[in-house]
C-alpha cells in the first residue's frame, strides 16, 4: 500500500468502447514517480481516449484507476490536466490571465470572487511560461503556441504532482516546443510527474524518459532505453511502413553522427 501511494498513476485492466467499438483494450500500465512519460501510437490508437478515460471524461467499460493509491475523486487536487487546444472556443471574451486563474477556481471555492492574490499567482504562472507580457491580451489575439502556453500555465497554477497533457506540442512553432520541453523538464526536476500524449517519434527519446506504446492494447511500457526499439515500434505501427522507415532513417543518421563524433 505504501508503495502504491508513491505511484502517481496506476491503470489496471482499462477497457473503453464507443458504442460497440472498443478503442482501448485491457490496458494495464504504471507511470513511476518523477518520470517524464510519453504515450505514443498511430492515429486512432486510442491515446487521447486513454487519457480521457483515466480522467473520468469518457465512461469506462471496465478498469481501475489509482492516483497515488487513491481514487481520482480523492486525489483530484494533485492532478492537473492540459486538454487539446482545439477543444475550446478561443473567441471567448476573456484575457490570458483570467484563463490561467481558472486553474485556481477549486481553491477559491464557490460563490467567491477572484482576489488580488489569486491574480498575482496567475501572473506568476504566466511568467513561468514566458507569457507575462500577454497577461491582459484577449485570447483570440494569441498565436497557437501562445494559447498552448496559456493552457500550460493554467495547469502550473494548480501546483499539482501529476500533469496529464493531451498533445501539448500539436501545432506549435519550434520556439514554443523548446520552451514547453524546458518547462516539462523543470517540473520533473522539482519532483513532479508528467504524462504527455505525443505523436512525433523523432523527438520522443530526446524529450522523454518513460514510454507507453499504445495501439488499442498496450504494446510496451517502461523506461525509454528499454522500450524504444525498432521491434516494439514495428508492432505498434504495424503496416504503416512509411512512418517507420522515416524513423529508422533518423535512427541511422543519429548512429552515424554518434559514430562520427
Amino acid at each position, binding site marked *: 500500500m505504501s508503495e502504491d501511494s508513491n505511484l502517481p498513476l496506476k491503470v489496471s485492466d482499462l477497457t473503453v468502447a464507443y458504442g460497440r467499438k472498443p478503442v482501448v483494450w485491457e490496458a494495464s500500465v504504471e507511470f513511476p514517480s518523477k518520470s517524464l512519460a510519453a504515450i505514443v501510437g498511430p492515429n486512432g490508437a486510442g491515446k487521447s481516449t486513454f487519457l480521457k478515460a483515466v480522467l473520468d*471524461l469518457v465512461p469506462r467499460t471496465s478498469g481501475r484507476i489509482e492516483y497515488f493509491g487513491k481514487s481520482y475523486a480523492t486525489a483530484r487536487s494533485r492532478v492537473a*490536466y492540459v486538454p487539446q487546444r482545439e477543444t475550446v472556443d478561443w473567441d*471567448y*471574451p*476573456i484575457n490570458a490571465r483570467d484563463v490561467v486563474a481558472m486553474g485556481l477556481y477549486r481553491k477559491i471555492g464557490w460563490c*467567491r470572487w477572484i482576489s488580488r492574490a489569486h491574480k498575482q499567482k496567475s501572473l506568476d504562472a504566466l511568467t513561468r511560461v514566458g507569457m507575462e507580457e500577454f497577461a491582459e491580451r484577449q485570447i483570440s489575439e494569441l498565436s497557437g503556441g501562445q494559447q498552448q502556453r496559456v493552457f500550460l500555465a493554467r495547469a502550473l497554477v494548480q501546483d499539482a504532482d501529476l500533469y496529464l497533457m493531451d498533445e501539448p506540442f500539436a501545432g506549435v512553432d519550434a520556439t514554443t516546443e523548446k520552451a514547453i520541453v524546458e518547462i516539462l523538464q523543470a517540473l520533473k526536476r522539482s519532483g513532479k510527474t508528467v504524462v504527455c500524449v505525443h505523436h512525433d517519434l523523432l523527438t520522443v527519446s530526446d524529450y522523454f524518459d518513460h514510454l507507453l506504446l499504445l495501439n488499442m492494447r498496450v504494446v510496451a511500457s517502461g523506461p525509454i532505453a528499454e522500450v524504444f526499439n525498432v521491434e516494439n515500434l514495428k508492432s505498434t505501427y504495424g503496416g504503416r511502413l512509411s512512418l517507420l522507415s522515416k524513423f529508422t532513417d533518423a535512427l541511422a543518421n543519429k548512429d552515424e553522427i554518434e559514430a562520427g563524433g
Partner: protein
Amino acid sequence: MDTEFLQRFADALLNMSYNQKVIYLGVVVLGAASGLAGTFLLFRKRSLLSDTVSHATLPGIAIAFLLLHAAGRYEKQMVPLMIGAFVSAWLSMQMVRWIRKYSRIKDDAALAVTLTAFYGLGVVLRSVIQQTPSGNSSGLESYLFGMVASMVIADAYVIIGLALVCGVLCLLCFKEFSLLCFDARFAQTQGYPTAGLDVAIMTLAVSVAVVGLQSVGLLLIMALLIIPAVTARFWTNHLGRMVLIASGIGGVSSFIGAVISSVFPRVPAGGAVILSAGCLFLFSLMFGRTCGWAIVVLRRIRLQQRLREVQFLRAVFDTLEKQQQIRLLVGYEFDRSLARTPVSISAVVAKRDWTDKTVAQAAGRLANKQHLVHVDASSIQLTKAGLERAIDCARNHRLAELYLLNYADVAPQNVHQYVEEIEEVTTPEIAADLRSLFHDELAAHEIPLEPHEVR
C-alpha cells in the same frame, strides 16, 4: 401633427400612475435579466434552445388554463399559468438534453423535434380552449405576441422578483458559469458538477422565457435573450463587462418598446421591444468597438494610406539615390546633404503602377504631415523629417529583402514582390529585430544597397 405626436410620448412618460411605473420597471428588469441569461446561453452554444423552450410554454399554459377552468376559476390568473408554462418549458429542455445524450440525433434536429412536438400539442389544446364558453375571452393571445397593456401590478412584482433571483444566481456562480462556458471538460476534471451547472444555466433561460411571455410573447422572447448578448459582444472583450452591457441593452430596448406600445396601442409590445433591440444590434454591427464593420473598414483604409505613404517615400528615396550613384560611382554612401533636391512626380509614378490621383493623394497627405513640400506642379522636395522617414522606410525594406534572401531562400527576382506583400505587417518591433540581426551590414552601410536588380 408633430406636437400632438410628441405630446402623446410625453404623456406616456410623465403622467404615469404608480402602477404603470411598477409595470415599466418590471419590463425593464425583465430585459436586463434576459440579457444576463442570454449571454451564458450564447456561450454554451445554445441560442436556439431559447426558441424551443419559449414555444414549449404553450401546452403548459393551455393545460393550466384547462385545469383552472375545470376547478371553476374562470378569471385569468397569472401565477398558475406561469407555473404551467415553466413546467412544460423545463420538460422540453430536459427532452433536448435526453435526446442529445441517449441518441445519435444531432443538436439542431433534437431542438426542431422538441419544438414542434410541444408547440403542436399547444396548438391542439388551444383549439380545445377556444371551444369552451369562456375560451374566446381567455386572453391567451397576449401570450403569443406580448401585451404590456394587459399587465397588472401583481404581474410586475412576480417579474421583478424572479429577475432578481436570476441576477443573484448569476452573480454568485459567475466564475463557475464562465468556466463551464469556456471549457466544460476542464471544469469536469476540476470536480465541478457540470451537468448541474448546465441545467442551472438553462433553467435560468427557461425562467426568463416564461416571465417574458406577458410582455414580449412566446414567439419573440428568443430575440430578447439572444440579441442583447450578441450586441454586447461588439463592445467588449471581457465577460463581466459583456454581461453588464447585455443587461443594459436588454433593459433599454424593453423600455423603448413598452413606451412605443403604450403610445400606439395596436403595436404589440413584443414587436416593438425586439425592433428597438434590433436597431441597437444593427448600430453595433456597423460601429461596434471590437469588430464593427465601420471600424474594420476604417482600419483598412488607414493601413492602406500608411502603406501608400511608405511606398511613395521609398520611390522618392530610390530616385534620389540613383541621382547620387550616377554622380559618384565608387565608394558610394548616401549623402543627406545632397538629398534635398526636387524630385519630379513623374519619376515616382514611373516606379509604381499608380494613377495620377493616387499619387496626388499620397503626396497631399505627406505634405500635410510636413514630410515634403510641393516645389511646383510637377515636382516635390523632402523636408528634413521627410528625408529621415524615407531613409527609414528604405532601410527597413532592404533589410527585409536581405532577410528573405539569406534566411528564407527566396529567389532574388521574387524578393521585392514578397517584401511588398509583408510590408503592411512590418511592425516597429520587427524592424528593430531586423536591425539587430543585420548589425554588421548596417555598420558598413547606414542604408544597405538594394540587394537585388532594380527593374
